[in-house]
C-alpha cells in the first residue's frame, strides 16, 4: 500500500510539473499575442539609440543613467553565508553593480542549488524569463532554437573590456559552444580542460619500502601493481593488498580507468580525430581493446579487487583509506578525497601524482572533455543587453586587480564572491595560475599578492609544513609538488593533452541512443575486465555501430563540417 502511495506521489509530482507547463504556456501564448512583432522592435531600438549617440554609450564601465532594473534569479546552498544585515538583495556586489554601473539587481526567485535546473525549466515553460540568467546546455539549445535569446555579438564587440575580451577569446572552444548560427548567444562558462585531466596516483612510502623506482612507463606501473599485490607493502604478513583501484562506474574521477587507457593511447568516451581528420569515438578503437586486455590480465592475477564490479567510487575508496591499495588513476582532487582519509589514518602514508605514462615510446596524452553546461544568457527583448557585458567587465576588474578582497572576496569565512553574478565565466589560467602564484609566494616569502582564495590554500599548506596533517590534501592539490604542478608542467606546458573534439549540444541520435549505448559500453567493459573473451570487444564495436553509433558518427562529422 505504501509503495503504491509513493509511486502515486511521484506520478503526481510529474503530472503537476506538466500541468504548470500547460498553464504557463497559455500565458506565454497570450503575451506573444498582446505584443505581436515585439522582438524585431526590440532589436531595432538599441541600434537606433546607439547610432544616435555613439560616443556616450561605448564605455565598458559606463554607468546607466538613469539606472536600469535587472531581473535575475539566484541559487543558494549551505555554503552561502551573509554578514549581519546582508542578503541577496543587499550586499557588496549588488552595491558595486548599482553604484558603479547603475544596474539595480532584482531577485525574481532564489532556490536551493540542486533545484535550480528544475525551477529554470518551469520558468522557461512558463515563459516567465528573468533578464539575465544561467542555463544548462539543453536549455540553452532549446531557448536558442525557439529564438528566445538576445544576440550578444554587437554588445560584446562594443562593450567588452580588454581583460574580458582576453578571457573569452582564450576559450575559443567555449566561445564556439556559445555561438549558434554566427550569433553569440551567451557568455560561456570557463574553459578549463586541465581540471578534468586524469593523473596517476601512487603511494610513495610503499615505493620506498619496496625499493621501487617512480613510474615513468606503463611497464613500471604494471611492475608496481604486481609488487604492491605480492610483496606485502603494509608489512602485516597477510596477502591483503591490491595493485589497482577500480569501481563499478569505471569512469568518473575516482577511481577512473580513463588514465589507464590513455597510457595505451586510447581515449574512451570522447571524440577524437583519426588520420583522415574525421571524428571517431574513442571507446571503439583498437587501443581501448589492448587496455581492456591488460586490465583483464591484472584482474586474473588478483591485482584488482574481486568485488570492484559492485562498488561505487565512495565504497571502493574504503580500500585505499584502509591502506590496502597504493595505486590508481584519478582526478586532481583525489588528495582531498579519498587520499586525505588514508593520510588521517596512517600519517606515514604519502601519495604523489604523476603524468600519464606511456605503454611504448610514443608520448602518452591525458584526455579531457568539457561538457559545456553553463551559459549566461539574456532574454530576447531585454532593452540593455550590454548590461551583461558590463557586469562581466566589472567582475573581472574587481577579481583581476584583487580589489579589496575583504569586501568582494571573503572575510571571516563568509565568501562574498558568491554573490557576484556570472561566476565561473571566461578563462584565465584557471587553477594552474593559483598553484603558480602560491609557489611564487613560497619562493619570495611574500604572500601579500595572493587573492583571498589563494591565501586560504597558502595558509593550509603553511600549516601542513608546520606539521598539521589535515593540510596535506590541499598541499597535494596546490603545493610545490601537487596535482597542479604536474598538470601545469606536463599537460599545459608540454601540451600532453588530448581534448574532446566534439563540443556541440547532444545531436539528435545521441539524445535518443545515449542511454542504450552507454549501458552497452559499461556492461561490455566490465565483463571483459572480469574475464569475458576478448571477442566481446569486437562484438561491442559492431553492436555500437549498429545501434546508432554510425548515425551519431555521421551527425558529429556533419557538425564538424560547419565549424
Amino acid at each position, binding site marked *: 500500500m505504501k509503495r503504491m502511495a509513493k509511486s502515486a506521489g511521484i506520478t503526481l509530482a510529474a503530472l503537476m510539473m*506538466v500541468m504548470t507547463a500547460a498553464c504557463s504556456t497559455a500565458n506565454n501564448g497570450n503575451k506573444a499575442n498582446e505584443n505581436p512583432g515585439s522582438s524585431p522592435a526590440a532589436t531595432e531600438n538599441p541600434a537606433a539609440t546607439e547610432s544616435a549617440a555613439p560616443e556616450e554609450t561605448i564605455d565598458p564601465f559606463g554607468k546607466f543613467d538613469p539606472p536600469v532594473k535587472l531581473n535575475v534569479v539566484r541559487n543558494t546552498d549551505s555554503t552561502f553565508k551573509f554578514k549581519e544585515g546582508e542578503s541577496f538583495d543587499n550586499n557588496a556586489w549588488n552595491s558595486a553593480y548599482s553604484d558603479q554601473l547603475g544596474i539595480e539587481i532584482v531577485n525574481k526567485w532564489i532556490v536551493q542549488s540542486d533545484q535550480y535546473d528544475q525551477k529554470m525549466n518551469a520558468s522557461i515553460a512558463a515563459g516567465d524569463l528573468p533578464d539575465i540568467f544561467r542555463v544548462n546546455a539543453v536549455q540553452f539549445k532549446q531557448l536558442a532554437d525557439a529564438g528566445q535569446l538576445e544576440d550578444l555579438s554587437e554588445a560584446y564587440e562594443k562593450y567588452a573590456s580588454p581583460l574580458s575580451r582576453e578571457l573569452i577569446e582564450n576559450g575559443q572552444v567555449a566561445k564556439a559552444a556559445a555561438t549558434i548560427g554566427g550569433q553569440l548567444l551567451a557568455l560561456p562558462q570557463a574553459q578549463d580542460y586541465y581540471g578534468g585531466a586524469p593523473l596517476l596516483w601512487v603511494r610513495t612510502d610503499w615505493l620506498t619500502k619496496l625499493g621501487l623506482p617512480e613510474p615513468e612507463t606503463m611497464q613500471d606501473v604494471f611492475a608496481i601493481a604486481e609488487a604492491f599485490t605480492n610483496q606485502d607493502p603494509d608489512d602485516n604478513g597477510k596477502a591483503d593488498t591490491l595493485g589497482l583501484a577500480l569501481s563499478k562506474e569505471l569512469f568518473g574521477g575516482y577511481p577512473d580507468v580513463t588514465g589507464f587507457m590513455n597510457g595505451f593511447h586510447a581515449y574512451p568516451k570522447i571524440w577524437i580525430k583519426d588520420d583522415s581528420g574525421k571524428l571517431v569515438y574513442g571507446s571503439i578503437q583498437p587501443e581501448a581493446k589492448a587496455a581492456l586486455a591488460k586490465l583483464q590480465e591484472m584482474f586474473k592475477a588478483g591485482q584488482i579487487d574481486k*568485488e570492484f564490479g559492485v562498488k561505487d567510487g565512495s565504497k571502493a575508496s574504503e580500500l585505499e583509506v584502509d591502506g590496502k591499495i597504493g595505486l590508481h588513476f584519478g582526478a586532481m582532487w583525489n588528495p582531498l578525497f579519498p587520499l586525505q582519509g588514508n593520510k588521517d589514518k596512517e600519517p606515514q602514508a604519502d601519495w604523489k601524482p604523476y603524468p600519464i605514462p606511456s605503454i611504448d615510446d610514443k608520448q602518452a596524452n591525458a584526455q579531457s572533455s568539457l561538457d559545456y553546461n553553463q551559459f549566461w544568457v539574456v532574454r530576447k527583448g531585454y532593452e540593455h543587453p550590454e548590461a551583461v557585458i558590463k557586469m562581466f567587465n566589472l567582475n573581472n576588474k574587481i577579481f583581476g586587480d584583487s580589489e579589496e578582497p575583504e569586501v568582494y572576496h571573503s572575510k571571516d569565512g563568509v565568501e562574498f564572491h558568491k554573490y557576484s553574478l556570472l561566476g565561473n565565466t571566461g578563462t584565465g589560467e584557471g587553477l594552474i595560475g593559483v598553484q603558480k602564484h602560491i609557489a611564487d609566494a613560497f619562493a619570495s616569502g611574500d604572500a601579500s599578492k595572493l587573492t583571498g582564495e589563494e591565501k586560504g590554500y597558502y595558509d593550509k599548506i603553511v600549516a601542513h609544513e608546520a606539521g598539521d596533517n589535515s593540510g596535506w590534501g590541499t598541499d597535494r592539490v596546490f603545493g610545490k609538488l601537487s596535482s597542479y604542478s604536474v598538470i601545469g608542467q606536463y599537460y599545459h606546458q608540454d601540451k600532453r593533452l588530448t581534448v574532446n573534439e566534439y563540443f556541440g549540444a547532444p545531436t539528435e541520435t545521441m539524445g535518443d541512443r545515449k542511454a542504450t549505448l552507454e549501458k552497452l559500453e559499461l556492461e561490455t567493459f566490465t565483463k571483459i575486465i572480469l574475464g569475458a573473451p576478448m571477442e566481446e570487444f569486437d562484438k561491442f564495436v559492431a553492436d555500437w555501430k549498429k545501434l546508432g553509433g554510425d548515425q551519431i558518427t555521421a551527425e558529429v562529422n556533419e557538425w564538424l563540417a560547419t565549424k
Partner: protein
Amino acid sequence: MVEKNWSRQLPLHLMVMPALLLVLVFSYGPIAGLVIAFQKYSIVKGIFGSEWIGFDNFRYVFSLPGTLDVIGNTVLIAFMKIVAGLIAPIATALLLNEIRIESIKRGVQTLIYLPHFLSWIILGSILIDILSPSSGIVNQMLGLIGIKPIFFLGDNQWFPYLLVLSDVWKEFGFSTIVYLAALTSINPTLYEAAVVDGAGRWKQTLHVTLPGMLPIIILMSTLSLGNVLNAGFDQVFNLYSPQVYESGDIIDTFVYRLGLVDAQYAVATAMGMFKSAVSVLFVSVSYYLAYRLANYRIF
C-alpha cells in the same frame, strides 16, 4: 422531501468541497499532461506548441534493444516480491499471535519493524559489506557448512533473488502490523466456540483466524498487484551494477537513465503511462476476481 434533504446535507457538501477540489486539481487535472507522451515535447514550446507524433515515443521505447529484457526483469522481480511480501508478513503475524508473553511479542515486532526506516542508500552500502564473498559475514557462515563463497551482488543467477530477499527482510515487519491489527478484530467468541468443538491451535488458525483475516489479505493483494511493474527503484538503483544489468535492470532504472539523465521527458512519460495502464489493468482484474471468488468488495 428531496428539497429538505438537500438543505440539511448542504453543510456536509460544503465541508467535502475543499478536499474534492484538491483531488480534482492535483489528481485529475494533471492527467491531461499525459498528452506529452504523444508529442515531441520541448519545454520551450510547451504542451500546445510541441509537435504531435502519435505513438512514436512508445514505438521508440519498444524498439530500443533491451527494452523487452528490462520488462521481463521487472515483472519477474516484482511478482516474486508481491508473493513473498504477502506470505512472509502473514506467517509472521500468525506466529506472533501465538506468543503468550506480551513483552517478547512486542520486542520481536519492534525489531523486525526497524529496517523499514533505513534508506536503501545506507542499506546498499551495508549489504555490499555483509554479502562480500571475501570478507562478508554471510559467506563466512556459509563457509562453515562447506558452501563456497557466493557473489550475491555480482552474479546474475542470484541477484534477482537477493533483491526479493532483502526487500522482504526490510519491509515484512512493517506489513506484519497490518495483519496483526486484523487479528485483533476477530471476535474471541469464535475461538471459544472452536475450543468447545474440540479444535486445537492449528484447526483454530485454519478455520477461525485465516478466514477472519481474509478480507484484509484480499485487500492487500489487490493493491499490491498494481505494483506488478514496480520492482523498486531505490533498492535496485543502489544495489545494481553493470555486472548484473542483465538480470537486474528494471523499467524504473531504465527510465531514470533515459528520461532524467538524458532529459527525454516525453519518452519517460510514455513509459510511465505504459506502467500506469498495466497497473490499472491488473488492479481491475484482481478487483473483479476478489468480488467473484471471495465475494469481497473494496470500494
